[in-house]
């Protein structure tokens, strides 16, 4: 027999009970259908391949699918989806596996659609500042492709993620304060629904810079984390690579002073490109890790984009503001080497945090609140960390009111893991109490479904559930993510 017993059992967990002989015939016929669609090489049952496709970069454990398929075009995605729909197999889209909320775990088994072979950059329109890409194109690959054109796609979540995956999670990054998140930069999507229907959310091939035509289907799928459909193309808004960049850093006596400076810089109309916050614990970690000597105090890392002349004005305005808020040690640089040196702490933050406790794992929290609430939530969070003996240096995209505690935790200590879990729940609820959100960038995935209910309230969740039922009545698309299973 081709399949081991475990495979057969897994694939059928989600379906109603059938006899043993009917089961194996059905599963076999599905596999042979997959192979005839994607080719012999396009289907894998290997344990290593399934494990690779059952986890991402979160702390959630690996939940491998029963089979991984590698479609090469949207027609193959649609055909495989039709087979899955017929047999009620769960469908899990997979880009680069760089997510942070367990979004790719096959909780109910099923078929993982690994989209990496669809890796073409299609339809670049330089004068219109738009390009369409397939799911196998990562953001660094796109920017390398665009390098001759003077254009770039600035959304930068850190990882070299699939752009369609970034659309699925509504990713953001360090320069969202100037260039926006995926929500503002996706013009059109090609999506395959659970029954194989291919949808163009803004109409096939359309790419106007703005539209008021009909319901905003594009942004319905952006952030849907694979629960409404498989994104097979995304049309993105591009920007000109700025003529020049300047980086700066500044130390502050308090979190309040740093945030006040941020608000005032934004209010003064400086089109700041990046404004990142590191707390004193993080700065201390960075000093130790990279042998630096920053003053151990809340610090802002700033980056400005523009022409030579406008940069001078931007930097002067920012420097004046930071000084008036008690900022000190304002340093700035234009050439790439010195800029990298100035920002070294921010770039190495993740590793510096982990180095605080070698052998431990790092987990990033992710909440976002209105700017005015940022000082209070950071202060309360730091008190919580100290009270509960947790290691959690803080780095934040302070221009968006979004910050991350890099929780460094011993993976073999269940008591500590539990304390971290409770801490992250308190943190999320603290953010919700301040009119914020339980996830600024990383998505809901597996771990924040209950918090989503608290955040949105019963009525809005019901509307979301209604949309889910309309697009995926069999609940095949990435089950157990974003929305909780309804209790019948």
């Amino acid at each position, binding site marked *: 027999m081709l399949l081991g017993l475990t495979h057969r059992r897994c694939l059928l967990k989600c379906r109603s009970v059938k006899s043993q002989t009917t089961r194996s015939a059905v599963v076999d016929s599905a596999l042979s259908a997959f192979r005839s669609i994607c080719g012999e090489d396009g289907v894998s049952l290997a344990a290593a391949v399934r494990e690779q496709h059952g986890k991402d970069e979160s702390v959630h454990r690996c939940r491998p699918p029963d089979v991984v398929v590698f479609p090469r075009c949207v027609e193959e995605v649609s055909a495989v989806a039709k087979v899955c729909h017929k047999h009620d197999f769960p469908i899990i889209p997979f880009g680069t596996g760089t997510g942070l909320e367990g979004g790719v775990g096959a909780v109910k088994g099923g078929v993982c659609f690994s989209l990496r072979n669809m890796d073409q950059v299609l339809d670049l329109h330089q004068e219109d500042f738009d390009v369409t890409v397939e799911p196998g194109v990562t953001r660094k690959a796109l920017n390398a492709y665009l390098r001759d*054109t003077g254009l770039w796609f600035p959304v930068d979540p850190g990882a070299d993620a699939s752009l369609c995956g970034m659309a699925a999670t509504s990713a953001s990054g360090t320069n969202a304060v100037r260039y926006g998140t995926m929500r503002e930069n996706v013009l059109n999507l090609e999506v395959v629904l659970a029954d194989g229907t291919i949808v163009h959310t803004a109409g096939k091939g359309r790419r106007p810079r703005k539209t008021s035509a009909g319901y905003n289907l594009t942004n319905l799928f952006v952030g849907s984390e694979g629960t409404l459909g498989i994104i097979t193309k995304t049309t993105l808004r591009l920007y000109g690579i700025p003529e020049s960049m300047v980086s700066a850093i500044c130390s502050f006596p308090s979190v309040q002073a740093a945030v006040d400076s941020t608000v005032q810089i934004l209010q003064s109309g400086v089109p700041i490109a990046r404004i990142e916050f590191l707390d004193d614990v993080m700065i201390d970690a960075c000093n130790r890790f990279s042998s630096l000597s920053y003053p151990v105090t809340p610090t802002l890392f700033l980056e400005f984009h523009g022409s030579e002349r406008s940069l001078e004005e931007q930097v002067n305005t920012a420097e004046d503001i930071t000084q008036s808020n008690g900022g000190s040690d304002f340093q700035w640089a234009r050439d790439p080497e010195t800029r990298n040196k100035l920002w070294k702490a921010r770039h190495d933050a993740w590793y510096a945090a982990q180095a605080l406790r070698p052998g431990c794992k790092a987990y990033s929290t992710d909440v976002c609140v209105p700017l005015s609430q940022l000082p209070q939530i950071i202060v309360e969070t730091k008190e919580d960390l100290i009270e509960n003996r947790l290691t959690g240096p803080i780095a934040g995209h302070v221009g968006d009111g979004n910050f991350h505690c890099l929780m460094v935790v011993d993976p073999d200590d269940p008591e500590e893991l539990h304390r971290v879990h409770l801490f992250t729940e308190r943190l999320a609820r603290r953010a919700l109490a301040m009119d914020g959100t339980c996830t600024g960038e990383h998505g809901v995935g597996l771990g924040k479904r209950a918090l989503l209910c608290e955040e949105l309230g019963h009525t809005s969740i019901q509307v979301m559930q209604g949309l889910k039922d309309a697009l995926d009545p069999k609940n095949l698309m990435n089950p157990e993510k974003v929305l909780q299973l309804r209790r019948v």
Partner: protein
Amino acid sequence: MSGRVLVGVKRVIDYAVKIRVKPDNSGIVTDGVKHSMNPFCEIAIEEAVKLKEKKLIKEVVAVSCGPQQSQETIRTALAMGADRGIHVEVTGKDYEALGPLQVSKIMAALAKKEDAQLIILGKQAIDDDCNQTGQMTAALLDWPQGTFASEVALEGDKVKVVREIDGGLETIKINTPAVVTADLRLNTPRYATLPNIMKAKKKKIANMKPADLGVDLTSRLEVLRVDEPPQRQAGVKVETVEDLVGKLKEAGTI
């Protein structure tokens, strides 16, 4: 010293593209395939522009040999900071047969015509991997050469070059005029920004033919065949050490 630097830039298939061999094995598929500047040529341009920004040289001239599309490559060089371009037009069969010998003759002729102080080239092109043009150009001009450069420093009328060699790094000092070829670690090339691409449209590209330089393009090489590397075969799993030893013996490896 003229303070003029010539930089050769070659238009090649983009490094990220999957190369396919033509069905008749006569060459590789180039139609409709993304092309861009050879990565080592990008490094060469970056180094020249850096020298100009440090005010050690006065003018950077980007040179490319090829069909009409080579002008796009020169435009990228201009957007990165080169001052003007020279497009030596080579098309059709001549272009298919164009190799280091012909290009080095062209570069040597241009170096004399433009009174160049320095020629910077990429160490090799990623399509033919020849690694010959720099060396041949130096020989034709009877100029010293600093190849595989990971560091270049102008010191009066000499150039100090740190070269990457098998054993490590070798530092040499050569007289100018000289030829330098750029290795990977020489610098990180800048991306052409959109404003600079717009400004580059106003910079001049001179057109000429190899005959204008008195260069004979006859090739002494004939490409017989191009083949893909053999497909990688699947491995075989064995259950025991004895099986492993047996298979290795079968394959003649032990």
